[in-house]
């Protein structure tokens, strides 16, 4: 255990062994390079040390061939390392489409986590083993950074916008969760644990019959339900009707599509866009509509905004208004699967 800690933290995600492989490769490459240079240096220093017979060095100016050699070879090796690192990064930048989504809000000094099924927790994240998990994150105050060493992943959590992090746990267990970006007094205690569970256990945990770990009891409402409630409470529904004719555009089916703006530009409707539409509606005004939507900035918490987004998203899932199918999984969800690009 101790010995293994000297090498790695536990490897508990699909990403971890890949990062460790690159790490070990670099350890070997750099180790050999360093060893080579230090050996040469030591050898020269001893072999050509000053002696009464050797009071002055040979008159050597240099060698262009050698210079080219030791410029080009490291360059090529380094480009290879770049490609390796970048390919890992590329993978980590693109969550799989079937990833399970979880909302994360950071604030001084705690992590608030909201599962799509309604369960909320603080400073703990329960996830099932073997499924890709996608976190959509934001912060209420300063920059934080969501870091799980056992998964070898980390992403900053920035106020005013969403960031994404995904991973696929491979081993049940409890792992450290840290805040890696300095955020003030209790930065070092802003953490907790990630609990990876067997799917069945996880289902049970979601349902509230706890088998492991903490987590506050479920509020009963899923983000979509909460969003629907807010949509009525905050009077969104007075302008955004389910059929054309309201003051604002119909929101059914817009998620994932391109909308045309008054300026002629188009944007894709994603989390960031919906968020912006709610908090600073004037920034991007939809074509054909007056800039009549009031600003909700300052009136909604980050969690509420996330719930509204979840709700707006659900309007395009075929789950709510569009098709009354009880389970989105039941219908052939091809064109409107969550996150699927809608051309």
């Amino acid at each position, binding site marked *: 255990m101790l010995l293994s800690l000297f090498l790695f933290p536990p490897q508990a995600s699909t990403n971890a062994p890949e990062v460790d492989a690159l790490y070990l490769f670099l350890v070997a490459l750099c180790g050999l390079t360093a060893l080579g240079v230090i050996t040469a240096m030591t050898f020269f220093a001893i072999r050509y040390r000053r002696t009464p017979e050797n009071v002055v060095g040979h008159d050597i100016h240099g060698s262009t061939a050698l210079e080219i050699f030791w410029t080009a070879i490291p360059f090529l090796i380094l480009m290879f390392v770049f490609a390796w690192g970048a390919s890992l990064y590329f993978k980590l930048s*693109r969550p799989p489409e079937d990833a399970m989504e979880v909302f994360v809000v950071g604030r001084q000094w705690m992590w608030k986590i909201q599962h799509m099924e309604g369960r909320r927790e603080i400073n703990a994240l329960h996830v099932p083993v073997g499924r890709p998990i996608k976190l959509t994150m934001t912060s209420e105050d300063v920059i934080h950074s969501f870091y799980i060493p056992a998964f070898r992943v980390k992403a900053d959590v920035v106020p005013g916008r*969403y960031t994404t992090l995904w991973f696929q746990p491979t081993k049940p267990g409890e792992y450290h969760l840290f805040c890696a970006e300095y955020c003030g007094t209790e930065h070092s205690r802003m953490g907790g644990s990630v609990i990876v569970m067997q799917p069945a256990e996880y289902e049970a945990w979601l349902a509230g019959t706890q088998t492991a770990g903490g987590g506050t009891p479920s509020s009963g409402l899923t983000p979509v339900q909460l969003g629907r409630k807010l949509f009525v409470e905050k009077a969104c529904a007075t302008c955004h009707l389910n059929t054309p004719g309201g003051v604002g555009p119909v929101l059914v089916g817009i998620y994932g599509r391109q909308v045309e703006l008054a300026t002629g530009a188009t944007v*894709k409707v994603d989390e960031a866009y919906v968020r912006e539409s709610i908090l600073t509606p004037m920034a991007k005004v939809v074509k054909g509509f007056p800039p009549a939507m009031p600003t909700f900035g300052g009136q909604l918490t980050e969690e509420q905004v996330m719930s509204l987004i979840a709700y707006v998203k659900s309007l395009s899932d075929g789950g709510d208004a569009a098709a009354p199918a009880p389970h989105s999984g039941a219908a052939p969800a091809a064109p409107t699967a969550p996150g699927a690009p809608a051309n």
Partner: protein
Amino acid sequence: MSKHRYDPQATVRAYIMVFACLMIFTALTVAAAFVDLGAMNNAVAMAIAATKAVLVAMIFMHLRGGSPLNVLWISSGIFGFVIMIAFPLLDLLSRNILGIPGK
């Protein structure tokens, strides 16, 4: 002191010419601002400003006829400035290509 011969009349004439040009360009750029040139608006405004800047630097500031070293260094400043703008812009403009927040 400068090695070049100094011709007072020519210098004053050059200054006044430059001043006149700067005035004309100012008028031009203000006029252009009220015409809708689409995306060209910014380009035109910046091109005019750059021309004015070159005039001031070359004539008023004696960059022309001075040491090439001055030109070299001022270019390095412009170069640094361009880098400083280019990368954050690259960042900003390529932020939403993937459509994944934060990537």
